[in-house]
């Protein structure tokens, strides 16, 4: 066999003994083999360097929206345990931002709370996200993270925001968009 035939034999496979013997007596192939090994090592480093690269959260948000359009609301909505801590923090931030942004000096009867929600909903974007007052940055222009949470309905209505429902019972499911700085940007009530 000539050199090229040896290379053809080993293409993409572990080299056998004849190949090792050929390398031992052919300096050109040995050098080429070493270069090949160094490329393989470099590729491993390149793979490690990019292993944390992934699509921005808005892709997931778009897909979930498309999924719901196709199949309706989730059958078993739930949240990964590992994200609960982030969710809890996000809700607190969202609630605080909503509170400081939407409260107005007025008398509110217990049955009139959803009026603020209606006002806020008027500003929601196409995906149903209500931008939070004082939140820096847009929803589309940078890396955002989507966190799904459940809130006691009473907590939401106490803030004068949320789905128009007079009942304080049960929970409200919401999605919060977090900016790269960890601050809540927008909220969307799911039920």
């Amino acid at each position, binding site marked *: 066999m000539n050199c090229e035939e040896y*290379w*053809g034999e*080993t*293409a*993409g*496979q572990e080299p056998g003994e004849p190949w090792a013997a050929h390398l031992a007596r052919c300096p050109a192939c040995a050098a*080429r083999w070493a*270069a*090949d090994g*160094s*490329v*393989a090592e*470099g*590729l*491993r*480093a*390149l*793979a490690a*360097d*990019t*292993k*944390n*690269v*992934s*699509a*921005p959260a808005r*892709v*997931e948000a*778009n*897909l*979930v929206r*498309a*999924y*719901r359009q*196709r*199949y*309706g*609301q*989730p*059958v*078993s*909505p*739930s949240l990964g345990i590992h994200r609960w801590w982030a969710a809890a923090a996000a809700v607190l931030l969202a609630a605080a931002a909503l509170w400081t942004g939407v409260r107005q000096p007025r008398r509110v009867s217990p049955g009139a709370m959803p009026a603020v929600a209606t006002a806020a909903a008027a500003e929601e974007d196409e995906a149903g996200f209500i931008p939070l007052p004082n939140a820096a940055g847009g929803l589309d222009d940078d890396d955002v993270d989507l966190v799904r949470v459940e809130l006691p309905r009473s907590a939401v209505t106490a803030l004068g925001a949320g789905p128009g429902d007079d009942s304080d019972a049960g929970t409200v499911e919401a999605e919060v968009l977090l900016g790269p700085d960890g601050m809540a940007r927008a909220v969307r009530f799911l039920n």
Partner: protein
Amino acid sequence: MRLPESDHELFERLRAGEEQAFVALYHRRMPAIYRFALQMGGSASVAEDVTQEVFLALLRDGCGYEPERGTLVAYLFGIARKLLLRQFERRRSDLGLDGGSEPAGASEPADPFDALADLAVRERIEALRRAVSSLPRRYREVVVLCDLEEVDYAEAAAALGCPIGTVRSRLHRARLLLAEKLREERRGREPVPAWKAARCEI
């Protein structure tokens, strides 16, 4: 202990209307699909569009996934590849990688004393990244799939629609080309011979 659900099980559940299964499958497979699209398409916006389209394809009636013909991963990469080919046809030229943007996973040197060593490693990685992006498409896709994403040859073959032997030989050829490109780059960085000093008499 319960074994993690297979891609196929998640697919069946998502088609039955379980959003959680769709999200789980997305989280499991999105990074590799996104990186493949990024390495092949050359820009984050292309990668984002392709990733979104790949997972939207799963929601369509008659999406084309047939378990007896290959795994779901192979199917997803196959869809991504088709979308990228459509992009290439539109643009009629392959693009390089996003040279300006640093990958999110790139890490800073932990110790300032390691900075020089880290710089050398970074330079080597960047050189290789450039070399990969300059490979002809058929070689680039096998390198990205098999070497960077560690997809096995059978799945890569299913995604690319070619025999395993073709994957092997392309991969082999691609590595040789990469070695050659890296050698060229190293030669290009060697210092240019200094000009002979001469006094200007004007």
